């Protein structure tokens, strides 16, 4: 079975969806069926064909460049693909209820299908260009989804911001891809990795044979180390943008303006997590480059901790989840950044897997609760889930996972991440120590805000709000995801992810850290909002994301616009000046000429003849001799 099928099914579904977008029922059926089919295909592939396949599928004759556009289906990728398909299906099914009354539901469903296709493309791609394709399409879909309710100015602004911030970071991604491809002469992942790998062995042989360093470099065709570092850093910048890490983190909380299912999709399994997949693919190169690892490590360490703290202090629960996504994606990436070459990036992928499950669960449950409460502000939502058993269960499992309690899916993956970071710290050639410290602190903070979230949502409330009629699809989805979140940790037993053994020590440590976090949240008792108790003064700042939005505007948007105005002025007044100047000069010359000829005197004519002849004669005599 070609992995292309995984991409093609949702892509086709989106195409059909666009055609039938005016018929909600058709659109929903197409979307859900395609989602189911995709999940089925992914599952079959995962179970039956855990082998790598790659090869030329399209023949793009572009001169010297080799564009294999190949795909790869190793077990880790297929596992990720499966969870992506699962989350997508959940989102599609859930939206048939959630957006059932929306006049643009058809468009939404089609966009989600396209989004899924793009993410799956990134997952199965073994080709940097192909990755870029999926990467960019996801960005565009996120724009459409966040801006789905485009009648609201906030939604429009959030969509614009999300796309522009990620696109600015993508300058780095594109350049990184182009640079790597250019260096390798091929866009195939294996080719790129092979070409840019440190040829240490060859070098050492050459040096041992007595060749001076420059010659050895020449003989081994060594890639330029500095160039590689630069390119990796560029790629990392791109990933940081899409994954909403510092300093690009601010678009993500704003993206909560989109419909909740869209948030679930974007945050859980797709766009923000895609960077992990990409960097996992390039891990052999990344592991060799301390600089790039440091850049990534510092960024994600800061991000995860900062985001966890901000999540704790949010007065809006949906935004809390958003910040938690920033934090958790940081956790995924931290595994990639810190893991030593021997460990491999799969701990990060595992966390992607688990995060996809519990984060989609949380978002979808929160969305339901928000419908019941009529808003997402913490004050409004207080106790909004208390009346619905499925919500309570879902939120419990979800927050437990988020907090990283052992045995549920989130706990399993977090332990592996911690273990990888510890290995990195031990190996000592990367940002391992920093990451480890950040991880531990983040775990505590995460546990704290998870506790806060659960407390607030399930707190006792007298009016017991309900969300009107709920079609069976929504509880079914929630139950399914709840189950998956509980049992998802078993994936480590399939061996799809290449993981190191985790000692019991980590389990204990995790419990300890989580306990500290929970205890911290419960300082004020069960009835009070922990944020009010602990971080009262931080809340207004946290709600504004520490004012980074203003920073973006001051540092990037305004200068660029000012520059644009200057350029526009220069364009019409200066560059065009030579055109207008020419016209003006011609006209002036014409005016001058007509003035000279105005009198039309005969003596002028004859004077010109005589003078001209004399001049011409002089020129001739001088010129010819």
């Amino acid at each position, binding site marked *: 079975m070609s992995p292309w099928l995984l991409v093609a099914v949702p892509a086709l579904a989106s195409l059909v969806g666009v055609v039938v977008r005016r018929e909600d029922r058709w659109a929903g059926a197409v979307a859900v069926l395609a989602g189911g089919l995709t999940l089925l295909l992914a599952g079959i592939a995962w179970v039956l064909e855990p082998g790598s396949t790659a090869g030329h599928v399209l023949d793009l004759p572009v001169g010297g460049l080799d564009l294999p556009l190949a795909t790869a289906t190793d077990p880790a990728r297929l596992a990720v693909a499966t969870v992506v398909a699962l989350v997508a299906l959940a989102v599609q099914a859930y939206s048939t209820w959630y957006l059932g009354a929306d006049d643009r539901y058809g468009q939404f469903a089609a966009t989600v299908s396209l989004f899924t296709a793009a993410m799956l493309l990134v997952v199965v791609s073994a080709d940097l260009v192909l990755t870029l394709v999926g990467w960019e399409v996801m960005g565009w879909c996120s724009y459409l989804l966040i801006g789905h309710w485009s009648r609201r100015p906030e939604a429009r602004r959030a969509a614009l911001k999300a796309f522009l911030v990620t696109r600015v970071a993508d300058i780095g991604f594109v350049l990184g891809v182009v640079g790597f491809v250019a260096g390798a002469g091929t866009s195939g992942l294996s080719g790129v990795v092979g070409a840019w790998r440190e040829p240490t062995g060859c070098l050492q042989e050459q040096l041992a044979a007595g060749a001076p360093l420059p010659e050895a470099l020449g003989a081994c065709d060594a890639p330029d180390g500095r160039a590689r570092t630069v390119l990796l850093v560029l790629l990392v910048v791109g990933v940081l943008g899409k994954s909403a890490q510092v300093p690009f983190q601010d678009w993500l909380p704003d993206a909560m303006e989109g419909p909740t299912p869209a948030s679930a999709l974007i945050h859980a399994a797709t766009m923000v997590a895609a960077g992990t997949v990409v960097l996992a693919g390039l891990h052999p190169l990344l592991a060799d480059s301390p600089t790039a690892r440091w850049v990534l490590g510092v960024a994600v360490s800061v991000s995860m901790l900062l985001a966890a703290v901000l999540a704790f202090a949010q007065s809006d629960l949906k935004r809390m989840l958003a910040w938690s996504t920033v934090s958790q994606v940081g956790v995924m990436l931290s595994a990639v950044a810190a893991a030593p070459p021997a460990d491999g990036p799969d701990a990060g992928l595992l966390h992607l897997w688990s995060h996809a499950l519990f984060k989609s669960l949380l978002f979808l449950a929160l969305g339901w609760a928000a419908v019941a409460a009529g808003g997402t502000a913490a004050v409004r939502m207080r106790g909004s889930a208390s009346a619905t058993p499925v919500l309570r269960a879902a939120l419990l499992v979800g927050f437990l996972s988020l907090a990283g309690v052992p045995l549920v899916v989130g706990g399993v993956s977090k332990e592996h991440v911690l273990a990888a970071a510890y290995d990195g710290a031990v190996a000592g050639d990367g940002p391992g120590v920093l990451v480890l410290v950040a991880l531990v602190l983040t775990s505590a903070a995460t546990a704290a805000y998870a506790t806060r979230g659960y407390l607030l949502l399930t707190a006792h409330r007298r009016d017991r709000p309900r969300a009107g009629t709920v079609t069976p699809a929504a509880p079914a989805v929630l139950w399914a995801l709840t189950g998956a979140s509980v049992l998802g940790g078993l994936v480590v037993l399939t061996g799809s992810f290449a993981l190191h053994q985790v000692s019991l020590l980590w389990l204990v440590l995790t419990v300890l850290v989580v306990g500290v976090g929970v205890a911290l949240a419960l300082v004020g008792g069960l009835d009070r909002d922990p944020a009010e108790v602990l971080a009262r003064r931080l809340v207004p700042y946290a709600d504004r994301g520490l004012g980074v939005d203003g920073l973006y505007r001051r540092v990037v948007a305004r200068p660029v616009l000012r520059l644009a105005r200057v350029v526009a002025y220069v364009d019409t007044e200066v560059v065009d000046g030579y055109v207008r100047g020419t016209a003006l000069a011609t006209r002036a010359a014409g005016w001058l000429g007509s003035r000279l000829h105005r009198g039309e005197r005969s003596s002028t004519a004859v004077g010109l003849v005589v003078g001209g002849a004399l001049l011409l004669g002089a020129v001739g*005599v001088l010129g010819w001799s």
Partner: protein
Amino acid sequence: MTALDTAFAASAVLAVLGGLLAVVTRHVVHAALWLVVALLGVAGALLVLGAELVALVLVLVYVGAVVVLVLFALMLTRAPAGPDLAHAVGPWRAVGAGLLGLASAGLLASVLVPLADGSVDRAQVTTTQVAGELFGTWVWPFELLSLLLLAALVGALAVARGHRSRDPKAVP
């Protein structure tokens, strides 16, 4: 300095003087008369150079016909007997014209003088030879010349006859 040179110099001085006065005088009639003198000087020079026929024709055609015509024209255009104040020019124009003349003469002299590297034997071309060439070799231009004269005559007559056309835009 041979006798020919002397004779030539004399004619040349006459021609130059006549020409100078013809150019600078402010009496229009005098200008025409000084031109006669200048042309006589030129004719003399040509005679010295051995072109008798040309000299003769010059005197006959120019002095005999052209200058008379010019004089008639001056009369018909009511030229004043004294200085022609109506067409007086300012000093700048005069200086400019003088400079232009000097420059022309200088330019011409500067290219011609290097050619004059000594005395040469004056080539003898008889009038018979000239006539033979004129009616032999040069018969075609000669015939064209007759047509030119004819056309000039017809044209001058028609123009001088006045605007007898019924051009509606003619100013009466």
